[in-house]
């Protein structure tokens, strides 16, 4: 005897409504037969059987919304006897007119599988952080979603946040979804873009690295990060957090560094106090951070205290990226992939190594004019790589 269950028709589906039976108890079922119709967020879907047999009694009434995985009916193996709880030959005794009254004993009954259970605490935290509960698995009583089931980003402020070794890509996707949805919902972004000539910086790096063994070599990413960190000194309105209706600038500059995870996902752990590090120190910090990200061994502080984010597309990307601010931060810098392009220098067209820098910033905190000056300051510093 097999169960015919409410199937999952996508990760975002957690329940469906049984709207029609196309087979009836006693009907023979072949693999692939359409048995029922279920109403989901994606519309009415016909549900097929995955085994042979005879449709036994339905377990769910038409019109009932049930969670994914709820048995809808039993499918009896062909030839197996119908499980009849009341043998027909045997007459039940007459129901006595009066029954002894059962003592009122408190019995804990398993909760009926209706809707989905979310604890008050989880509801509150989700509401405060603008989190969706879609797709979350509950670990509380009766499978309820509880506060600790919420994505880690939401529980950053919670003392109970559990730390797991390694990276759970599913959890990470949830956290990204929650943070980015909140960002786009709450933060009025403005966007600026500016081409930066990296020819000088690139040549300077090549010269430096030519005299160095591989472990001491510096990547362009470190140079870019240092330029941002130093430029921030003059633009405190880009560095800090917007919380509880007000901007709180941060004195320390913890540079969130977006690092893509192979197989999908992204984290932006912080290079802490990036403005105080030497270029070599920053490069070492970056290497360390990437290595630990790959190994899934980031520290919680690195994950939760970036004051601004830098996202570089690296060598194999496209010209320009439009960042989404990671709340409660107020700005994100995007660096596109550098490419040789024609550019007018001193009245002549020359091939130059060009990179498009973008800024997405929170309009509640700063305006486009200041944002533009900030990008120009980053450009200015990158023209003098020896001062970084």
């Amino acid at each position, binding site marked *: 005897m097999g169960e015919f269950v409410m199937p999952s028709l996508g990760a975002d589906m957690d329940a469906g409504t049984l709207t029609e039976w196309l087979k009836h108890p006693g009907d023979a079922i072949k693999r692939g037969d359409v048995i029922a119709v279920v109403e989901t967020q994606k519309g009415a879907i016909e549900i097929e059987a995955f085994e042979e047999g005879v449709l036994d009694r339905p377990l769910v009434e038409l019109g009932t919304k049930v969670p994914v995985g709820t048995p809808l009916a039993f499918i009896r193996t062909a030839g197996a006897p119908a499980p009849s709880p009341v043998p027909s030959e045997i007459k039940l005794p007459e129901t006595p007119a009066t029954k002894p009254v059962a003592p009122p004993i408190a019995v804990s009954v398993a909760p009926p599988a209706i809707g989905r259970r979310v604890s008050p605490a989880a509801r509150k935290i989700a509401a405060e952080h603008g989190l969706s509960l879609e797709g979350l698995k509950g670990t509380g009583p009766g499978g309820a979603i509880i506060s600790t089931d919420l994505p880690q980003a939401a529980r950053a402020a919670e003392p109970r946040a559990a730390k797991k070794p390694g990276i759970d890509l599913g959890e990470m996707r949830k956290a990204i979804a929650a943070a980015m949805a909140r960002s786009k919902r709450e933060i009025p972004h403005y966007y600026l873009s500016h081409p930066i000539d990296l020819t000088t910086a690139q040549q300077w790096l090549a010269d430096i690295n030519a005299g160095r063994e591989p472990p001491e070599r510096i990547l362009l990413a470190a140079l870019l990060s240092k330029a941002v960190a130093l430029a921030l000194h003059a633009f405190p309105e880009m560095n800090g957090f917007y919380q509880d209706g007000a901007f709180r600038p941060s004195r320390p500059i913890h540079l969130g560094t977006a690092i893509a995870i192979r197989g999908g996902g992204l984290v932006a752990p912080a290079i802490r106090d990036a403005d105080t590090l030497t270029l070599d120190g920053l490069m070492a910090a970056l*290497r360390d951070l990437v290595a630990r990200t790959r190994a899934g061994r980031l520290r919680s502080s690195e994950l939760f205290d970036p004051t601004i984010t830098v996202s570089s597309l690296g060598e194999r990307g496209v010209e320009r990226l439009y960042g989404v601010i990671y709340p409660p931060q107020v700005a994100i810098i995007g660096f596109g992939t550098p490419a040789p392009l024609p550019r007018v220098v001193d009245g002549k067209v020359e091939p130059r190594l060009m990179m498009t820098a973008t800024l997405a910033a929170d309009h509640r905190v700063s305006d486009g004019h200041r944002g533009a000056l900030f990008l120009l300051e980053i450009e200015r510093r990158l023209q003098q790589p020896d001062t970084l």
Partner: protein
Amino acid sequence: MTREDIRTAVLEGLSNIAPETDPTSIGDAADLREALDIDSMDFLNFVIALHKRLQVAIPEVDYPKLLTIGGAVDYLDAKLA
């Protein structure tokens, strides 16, 4: 050191920087950056590992020669010869 030893070093270096991938499954001529989804930091770590293990100088200008497994083996073989 035989070419096979060098090849082993290259493959192990790649496994270390991209542990989720299987470098033996990609062809000798495939671009490592594409095939293994590695970025400049990963590539630098790969170069550092080869440098340490094989004690060869690998200047930046030679990086393009290391972008395939076959190219890397050829390059290192020539350096060690």
